[in-house]
């Protein structure tokens, strides 16, 4: 029986005010697995991810991360937010170093590690620039570098490539695949982009509209190592894409009709 990085059983979240956000989520993420969560806008994917990251409390069910209750800022994990949230008074490289600083990496190592991380996202030359002098895509890449510079074995990501243009997106997806292969890491990500989910993930989990349940699970049997360009040409990619997209459209339609 493989170790479970994330084990969610009948997880629900009923906030103090307002309707339920999560109704009944049961899913697992095995060590070394990449899992992508997709679903209609506002269905609660980010909320669930926040719960796994220890940022939000759930009100029902059990949720464990590597056998323990979720806790914010675990040293073995990193969380990449949807908004880049760089500190404006720090340069790009100093922002990446921030993660190393918080985790207690020795000062002598921080500079080199941060520089290498920035070079891998293609921003080696921008290391001394401040966020106001960077485009949004560049800022998001700095945030990505910050997320993996500490070599986390569990990465949680919330739409990390949202602000990137199509080409940079593809490059970053390939980078992510390489990195996770290198550290033998586990990835749980939330994305709107179904193609991206199929490129990166071993399993795609479809959330229903709010209050969220797991309404579908799809195994992505495309062999690794993967390359984001080649994957899109695989017949399995195309058929999975159609299958999931149909189900996703169904969920979106239901949430739309609720709004009417």
């Amino acid at each position, binding site marked *: 029986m493989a170790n479970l990085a994330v084990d969610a059983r009948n997880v629900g979240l009923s906030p103090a005010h307002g309707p339920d956000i999560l109704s009944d989520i049961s899913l697992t993420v095995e060590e070394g697995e990449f899992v992508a969560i997709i679903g209609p806008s506002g269905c609660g994917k980010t909320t669930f991810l926040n719960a796994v990251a220890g*940022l939000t409390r759930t009100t029902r069910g059990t949720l464990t991360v590597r056998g323990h209750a979720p806790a914010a800022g675990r*040293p073995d994990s990193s969380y990449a937010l949807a908004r880049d*949230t760089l*500190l404006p*008074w720090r340069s790009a490289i100093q922002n990446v170093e921030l993660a190393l*600083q*918080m985790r207690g990496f020795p000062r002598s190592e921080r500079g080199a590690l941060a520089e290498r991380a920035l070079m891998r996202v293609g921003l080696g030359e921008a290391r001394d620039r401040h966020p*106001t002098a960077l485009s949004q895509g560049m800022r998001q890449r700095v945030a990505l570098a910050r997320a993996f510079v500490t070599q986390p074995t569990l990465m949680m990501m919330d739409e990390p490539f949202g602000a990137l243009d199509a080409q940079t997106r593809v490059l970053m997806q390939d980078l992510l695949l390489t990195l996770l292969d290198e550290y033998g890491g586990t990835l749980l990500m939330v994305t709107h982009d179904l193609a991206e989910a199929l490129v990166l993930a071993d399993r795609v989990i479809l959330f229903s509209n709010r209050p969220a349940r797991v309404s579908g699970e799809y195994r992505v049997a495309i062999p690794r190592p993967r390359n984001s360009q080649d994957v899109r040409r695989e017949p399995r990619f195309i058929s999975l894409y159609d299958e999931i997209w149909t189900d996703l459209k169904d969920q979106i339609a239901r949430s739309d009709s609720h709004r009417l």
Partner: protein
Amino acid sequence: MRQTLVIWVIRIAIVLAVLAVWQSLSTFNLMNPVFIGTPGGTLREFVRQFGTSIVTTDLGYTMRETLLGFVLGTLSGFLFGIVLAQSELVERAAAPLLTAANSLPRVTLAPLFIIWFGLGSTAKVALVISVVFFIMTINTVAGLTMPDPDRQLLARTLGASRRQRLLYFVIPGAVPTLIAGLELSLVYSFLSAVVGEFVGGSYGLGVRLQQFANNFEVDKFFAVILLLAVVTTVMAQMLQWVGRRTTRWYGTDRLQQ
């Protein structure tokens, strides 16, 4: 470019107009020149000052009192503000008391400070500190308790400890607010030092102002005022320059307060 030229022309025109009105009050005997002085007389006295003890001794006294009080007052206010900001309960309890203390015109305590500390510089420094301490405390608390949910989230996801949060997220984030507090405090430091000197003392620009007013030496009075204006403007500009350089990367943060 043209706009800058027009702006300067307007500025010079305003100054000349004011000077003209001022001069005409004496020339046309609308008011007794003994009471209001003249631009020419003032300028003469301004230049003459530089050879006298006003610039060599009094200016030095006032500057020392101002700067010493400024540094001690802002530093202690800043540190106290950090302490207060640690506990929401304590901060809420203290807030109205601080506002009350800040609303009281503390320059009115000048005579009391002179009774306590004598006629020397100590009383003036104490007065400056009493004014600036409260300004800076309130300012620091405001800067440190500004909510920034994104940054708080970031700090939590990076596993920052309480100390790390304060040192690397909260205090640097408060720098634009703190700089504004420092600029205000500098102005009030000069003000308090000079007013303290009004009340009593042997040396200082405020002492001279008192003396000249009492002796109806209005041109000399205005000459000292002009000197004060030049000095305070230069110092304020220097502080502003430092402030701009420090916050040059903050971008829209500056506007978000």
